[in-house]
């Protein structure tokens, strides 16, 4: 068990004891405390368990600093691949190739997301924009249908095939339900340590939503499951649009981000 978890468990135990004692005292104080109202002194407040939060590290090299937005696009268009352009001013995401706009998606929001403790601050990750970021891994794939014949038999030309031959054709193994669609909310890992979050609604960041998220994560940590929490650039759009562009987020796809500030 790590020192962190031991400290957390100790903190949890002491917190519980302190609260139970305080609660009982408050309820029974006047009766049990004697006529003069004297009571047992409360234990000293216990410091809250704290978890160490690492400041997100942004790897240098992929975030251009001095080049203008147009220069960055000029550097990308020499290749034959697609790229994605994010324009916070007009709230659009464009799929482009050679400067040609192939598809345009309207965004309902663009936000930076930083992971931090639920109480208190935490360092905000601040990227330098404009910048060209690069997709490190394909967006989470939804399962594909699979054709996997057990054995292969000698070839029979089509005009000589019998009904038996046709019946022996391998069937498609449906790895997902018929008509399954790509996800409408997903994360794309980027090579600079950030992630691009494509969401079908604005991220929930109210106190209660954050508390709920922190609670779930705390439970995971207690069980020894460590999650990754990269700083993110979150783009919100309609679910249909998010599904439509899902297959474009393949490794090495450049994401060009127009100027903006966090």
């Amino acid at each position, binding site marked *: 068990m790590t020192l962190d978890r031991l400290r*957390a468990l100790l903190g*949890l135990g002491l*917190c*519980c004891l302190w*609260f139970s004692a305080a*609660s*009982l005292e408050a*309820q029974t104080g006047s009766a049990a405390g004697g006529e003069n109202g004297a009571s047992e002194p409360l234990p000293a407040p216990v410091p809250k*368990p*704290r978890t160490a939060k690492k400041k997100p590290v942004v790897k240098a090299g992929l975030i251009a600093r001095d080049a*203008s*937005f*147009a*220069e960055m*696009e*000029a550097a990308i*268009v020499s290749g*034959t691949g*697609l790229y994605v352009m994010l324009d916070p*001013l007009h709230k659009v995401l464009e*799929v482009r*190739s*050679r*400067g040609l706009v*192939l*598809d345009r998606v309207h965004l309902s929001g*663009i*936000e930076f997301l*930083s*992971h*931090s*403790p639920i109480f208190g601050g*935490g360092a*905000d990750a601040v990227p330098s*924009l404009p910048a060209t970021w690069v997709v490190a891994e394909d967006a989470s794939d939804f399962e594909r*249908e*699979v*054709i*996997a014949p*057990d054995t*292969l038999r*000698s*070839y*029979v*030309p089509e005009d000589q095939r019998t009904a038996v031959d046709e019946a*022996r054709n*391998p069937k498609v193994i449906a790895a997902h339900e018929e008509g399954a669609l790509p996800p409408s909310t997903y994360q794309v890992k980027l090579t600079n340590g950030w992630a691009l979050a494509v969401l079908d609604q604005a*991220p929930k*960041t109210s106190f209660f939503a954050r508390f709920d998220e*922190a*609670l*779930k994560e705390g*439970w995971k*940590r207690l069980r020894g499951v460590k999650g990754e929490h990269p700083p993110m650039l*979150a783009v919100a759009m309609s679910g249909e649009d998010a599904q*439509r562009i899902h297959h474009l987020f393949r490794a090495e796809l450049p994401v060009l981000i*127009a*100027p*903006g*500030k966090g």
Partner: protein
Amino acid sequence: MLRLLTVLAVLALCAASALALLGGAYKARPLSASKIDTGSPTAKKAAAAVETMQPKGVYVVIDTYRNHLKIYKDGELLRDAQCSTGSGTLLKDPRDGKQWVFDTPIGERVIQRKVKDPIWAKPDWAFIEEGYLPPKSASERFDDFSLGKFALYMGDGYIIHGTIFQSLIGQRVTHGCVRLRDGDLEWVYKTVPSGAKVYIY
């Protein structure tokens, strides 16, 4: 009883707070936009460089999600046709575990050549998919009807062609090629020259 319930509630709250302290959560900060620099000499030069890279004349744009093939000439839309693109299916060869993924590749390609009455030399996967061993005789691989009347080759075995399964046009059902209806295919064959750019997304 009330006292016990209160104690339990306080304990639960306490435990929840401690757990939340163990974890953490994302907080949002809006990205405020700035204007894109278009006036400086370097920005103008770069924008001109981007402009020169844009396709001239006739080019093809294929939307693999919505299964549409569009033909443009100098930015003007000439024709919007329904097509069929890659099914995304995965095929496994039981002999050595080799795999094929039937996706239409995204990115830029070029029409390398155009052929009337094309003959398809069926690759290994076309036999394995049906449960057959690929034939040893090359003559058994030739198929003169599956590709339809015309074919526009885009390299790496990817072709814009016709089909005998006209009713499946508009669906993701192919092995990565782009299928068109007969009328659209003939129009595309006549309009799109060799060397034309194809943008697939």
